């Protein structure tokens, strides 16, 4: 599903494959201790970080397959699972970069909606779907860039900046639409929205390709290296000549760009701009990133982990609904299993580190 597996899977075991942040994904067994510069006991085997949480996901898939053999493990259901997770995946991937720099982005849902509105308006005005898509991307990039500038140059805490831009972008989207959802042009909704390739929706391919590319970029390129360095110790990165401010602007810009793309894809997929429908996107994306082993204190994390982190809640919800667990119980059980899954992950890692 993601190219992240290419370097984080067992093939990379032994850490010999790359010099990247060796402890990536080794979340804070005591995050507070870690950030304070105390030397946590961790080894350098960079290749294993997402294995345990990945196993948790596999175990969940297996359990649901056993419990609901005729409904859960069908290609129909699994394809839908993937298709529903695709857009969230984009947001979570951008969020991974942001969180690795020790930042946070609460504005993604608002930027998504704003970009979708721009795409709809532009397409309507010009009749060109390509221009609409471009409009969404540029808009997303602009919001992200604004976040980045305020965080990097204004030195305002990222939480406040993105809370502010969340309000601004959502309010702006409502102003542009008058609070009434805009519809996607039919050829977008019925074109990109429904298109498939090898039986898999085109939107899924797009999201998977971008996620894979970014997973590779984070792990193997200078851009990724600087992302980790800033989250690990921004002052040290600055002294070493990393253009910290510029890089932060790029990272937030990337997150905005992805949110803009997500807005366009969401418009294509759902056919409307969804001005009121994305208020929990930011928390969903952040949760996915953290479940995937990225520390909120920055410096460690992988896109592959995030991919798993996106799927765990989605699979839980789907599985429990198929099993016929009642909705209120679902909330309870999903919450409990989430905590248990991450606990297992932490516990196994600790055991291995002994």
């Amino acid at each position: 599903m993601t190219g992240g597996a290419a370097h984080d899977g067992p093939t990379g075991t032994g850490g010999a494959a790359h010099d990247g942040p060796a402890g990536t994904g080794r979340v804070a067994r005591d995050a507070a201790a870690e950030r304070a510069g105390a030397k946590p006991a961790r080894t350098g085997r960079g290749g294993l970080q997402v294995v345990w949480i990945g196993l948790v996901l596999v175990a969940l898939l297996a359990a649901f397959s056993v419990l609901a053999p005729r409904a859960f493990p069908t290609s129909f259901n699994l394809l839908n699972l993937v298709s529903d997770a695709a857009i969230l995946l984009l947001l979570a991937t951008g969020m991974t970069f942001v969180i690795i720099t020790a930042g946070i982005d609460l504005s993604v849902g608002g930027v998504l909606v704003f970009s979708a509105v721009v795409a709809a308006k532009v397409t309507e005005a010009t009749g060109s779907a390509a221009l609409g898509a471009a409009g969404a991307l540029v808009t997303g990039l602009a919001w992200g860039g604004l976040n980045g500038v305020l965080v990097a140059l204004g030195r305002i805490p990222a939480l406040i900046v993105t809370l502010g831009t969340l309000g601004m972008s959502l309010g702006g989207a409502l102003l542009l639409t008058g609070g009434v959802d805009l519809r996607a042009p039919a050829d977008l909704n019925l074109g990109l929205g429904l298109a498939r390739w090898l039986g898999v929706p085109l939107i899924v391919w797009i999201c998977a390709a971008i996620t894979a590319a970014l997973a590779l970029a984070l792990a193997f390129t200078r851009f990724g290296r600087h992302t980790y360095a800033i989250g690990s110790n921004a002052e040290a990165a600055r002294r070493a000549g990393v253009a910290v401010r510029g890089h932060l602007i790029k990272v937030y810009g990337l997150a905005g760009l992805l949110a803009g793309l997500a807005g366009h894809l969401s418009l294509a997929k759902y056919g409307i701009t969804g001005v009121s429908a994305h208020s929990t996107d930011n928390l969903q994306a952040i949760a996915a990133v953290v479940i995937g082993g990225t520390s909120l204190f920055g410096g460690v994390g992988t896109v592959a982990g995030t991919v798993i982190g996106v799927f765990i809640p989605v699979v839980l919800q789907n599985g429990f609904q198929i099993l016929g667990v009642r909705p209120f119980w679902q909330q309870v059980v999903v919450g409990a299993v989430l905590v248990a899954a991450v606990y297992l992950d932490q516990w196994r890692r600790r055991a291995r580190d002994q």
Partner: protein
Amino acid sequence: GGEGSGGGGDRIRVALVQGLAGEEFYETMACGARAKAKELGVDLDVQGPQKFDPTLQTPIVNSVVAGAPDAMLIAPTDVKAMIAPLTQAKQQNIKIILVDTVVEDPTIGLSRISTDNLKGGAAAAEALSEQVGGKGKVLVISTDPGVSTVDARIKGFEDEIKASHPGLTYVGVQYSHNDVGEASRIMNAALAKDADLAGVFATNLNSATGAGTALQQAGKLGKVKMVGFDAGPAQVKQLKDGVVQALIAQLPADIGAKGVEQAVAAVKGQEVTPSIPTDATIVTAANVDRPEVQKVLYKAGC
């Protein structure tokens, strides 16, 4: 107006407090109210919370009261929780007109122009039953539990099915938290679980949108029948695209306009109508182009 607090002029000042800002139903209501206010030459100020939530609506009512308008139209977000702030408003001599929803205290609200969501839910059951031919499994996809208007729709739907549609099997309600993605996931899981699902009642736009997308992806669009609620432009588009087969339309613009009329009457000391019930209309592809149905569709912007 800019000097909103002044009240220097002798124009009547009316405030409309929506149940939820940025929702088509309430925006359409605001449009209706604005048009009527312009016609009558009164100032109208519209406010609304970002969630259908009394803890968010209370501060808004309080600040509106601080601005001392002559009258307030309000869609209370809870029958009980909003009594206290509205009592305070009444004590400041502000004429209160309840629109859409009501509060328990019968002394509040010189006029009540209410929508009957129970009846709307029943209408949805009727419409869905007709679409699926009176038998099969039906599912409800809603936003969040505890939202009174939506809960009433669900209750009306359930009661109606129990009472008069024995052929339908009600498989329960799932909550999408007003997230299209979530609604889509719910629909997928529902299809995986009950491949023979016959119909869906989506209690609001986002639920219908998400569910519709899932049906489309699954190639079941039109095979699994769906009934939506409200009749904004997006919903009507869904109706025309065949995503939903029927819509339950209320009359928000009408409610807004009537509310302003009643408010002005109250301020001027004229006679007000204590209770004005409104109706729900079933809109289908077959009747949507008829002029009398066109009239009840919500307008985009104003």
